[in-house]
């Protein structure tokens, strides 16, 4: 069984995995990081989205071993020293959650966007979030939240 070494939310981790174990399984079942969710297990819904070495990926279809030596950031890891990330604050203030199941993946996708493009247009936001499904909100407040966060966001992202 291969040993996987990776950094998750700033912490060095070592786990035993099989060659086909997904990154999602590693996060949820071995590291007890529960914010990435299993929605489809086929990379179609985005509920499992995390940031891998600065890149948004669907952890359910990312083989865990591909993350070897890399850094994973999940929702648990985006609040710098206890302060809410502007996206988190915006999602709360703008009512962008209902059941909350899509929220972790959605915020990570939005963060990946703002890290690359601090002042996106609405079409850019929609395109960036097009890999994340929400069955509750109808997306409007989610898009508004990302717009609001980008207005607050320092240009360098965090």
């Amino acid at each position, binding site marked *: 069984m291969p040993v996987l070494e990776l950094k998750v939310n700033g912490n060095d981790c070592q786990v035993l995995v099989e060659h086909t174990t997904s990154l999602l399984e590693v996060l*949820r*079942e071995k590291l*007890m990081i*529960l*914010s990435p*969710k*299993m*929605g*489809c*297990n*086929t990379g*179609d*819904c985005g*509920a499992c989205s995390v940031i891998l070495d600065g890149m948004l990926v669907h952890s359910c279809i990312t083989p865990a071993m591909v993350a070897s030596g890399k850094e994973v950031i*999940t*929702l*648990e890891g985006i*609040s710098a020293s206890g302060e*809410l990330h502007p996206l*988190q604050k915006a*999602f*709360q*203030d703008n*009512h962008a*959650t*209902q*059941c*909350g*199941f*899509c*929220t*972790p993946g959605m*915020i990570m996708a939005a963060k990946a966007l703002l890290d690359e493009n601090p002042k996106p247009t609405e079409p850019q936001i929609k395109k960036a979030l097009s890999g994340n*499904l*929400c*069955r*509750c909100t109808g997306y409007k407040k989610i898009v508004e939240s990302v717009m609001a966060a980008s207005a607050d966001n320092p240009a360098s992202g965090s």
Partner: protein
Amino acid sequence: MALEVVGKRALKYDGMSHITGQSRYVDDILIPGTLTVKAFRSPVHKGRMKSIDTSKAENMPGVAGVITYRDVPHNAYGMEPDQPVLVEKDIRYKGEPIAAVAAINEKVAYAALDRIVVDIEEEEPVFDPLKAMEPDAPKVRPEGNVYMFGSEPFKKVYIGDIDEGFRKADHIIEETYFYPDMEHSALETQVSLAVPEAMGKLTIYTVSQARNFHLGMLAGILKLGGDALQCECINEWSGKTRSSWRGKTGMNRVRLEGYAVGGGFGGKNELHADHITALLALKTARPCKWRWTREEELLYSTHRGPWYVTIKDGVMNDGRIIARYVKSIHDGGAYIGFNAYAAGKFSYFVNGPYYVPNLRCEGYCVFTNKPVASTMRGFAVAPGTFAVEVQMHKIAEKLGMDPWELRFKNAILKGDQLVTRQVMKDPSLVETMQALAKRAGVTLPDHLMRMTSESNQRI
């Protein structure tokens, strides 16, 4: 007393939990020793199971337990208990659960499914509800493919005399509308975690939208209170006295814990997984978790069943609908569930928000060899609303009348009696449409803007 919250902006109380990733859903509950559950499902749409042999699966290393119908204390549940937890003989839809395994991990669980041996005699299925209504159609269930409401094969509501109304009418406008089936596909699938507690008790972490309901059903299935699990009640839509599933004792031995639910929309109103995880937890004495795959969710979970709605209206030249006949056919799939109730509920709303003095609705609940239909947003009303409102447009078109005017003309006013025999005390379609027009930037003529819902205001 001053209102403290109404009219003020309030933040969602669980919003903070969601945005920090701390919300816990059933799949997030991690208990050491939890077994993974997978179901063995019928490969055929319709058939008879002649035998089932699970011994090879049970003997596999890593398999803690396998259940079949033999392990179910009372293998019937539902609003009118017609649905088995696990198939005993008759298979009514492809994917119907026949057996379930609890194993140390998913790989072993799937391998165990492959070792279950069944002998099934396949039969000809029927999928189309219109075909299912024909006398020579394959029988989905022994009682026939059309639910009996008392002595009639449909839920009947009527008021006045539609034949007289049709005679008097200047126009007859008849149309059939089809409202297709829909899948909720909430982002979280069906998930259930059953944990055996001391003294034969059970905690079930559930996504149920109807925990009290399901608690009763589970008590019945598990026969927790011994044999006292039935009470007599008048089943209002069949008019017959029927036994209910509700267990009168023993419900205190099952605790349904709800956590955050990743979307329901009516798709988590039926028992999907809790009964099976419960049985496996009791059999294996270990926590058992079953998380449905997205495929299982899309194929086998309850969905909104399709409706065929025929509306025949008798309309006067001035736009008044004086008679309406509606025939609705609800395709409920393989079991009763909420579907008889749906056909009934539908029929109370076929006038829409309009006053129709002569009305008759025949609401059919039909069975087909498909997964069970059930609740979904606007259950049994949305399909009717769609049909009624499109029909209004067709009437307006036929008469060359403004669709707004037509609706104001037929709006329910104070004092109108509906088919349910309710006399309306405080209707407000008129005011609602006026406000809507303003919002939509539509300028309505004065006589419509001046109208109120008072009984003497009919135009």
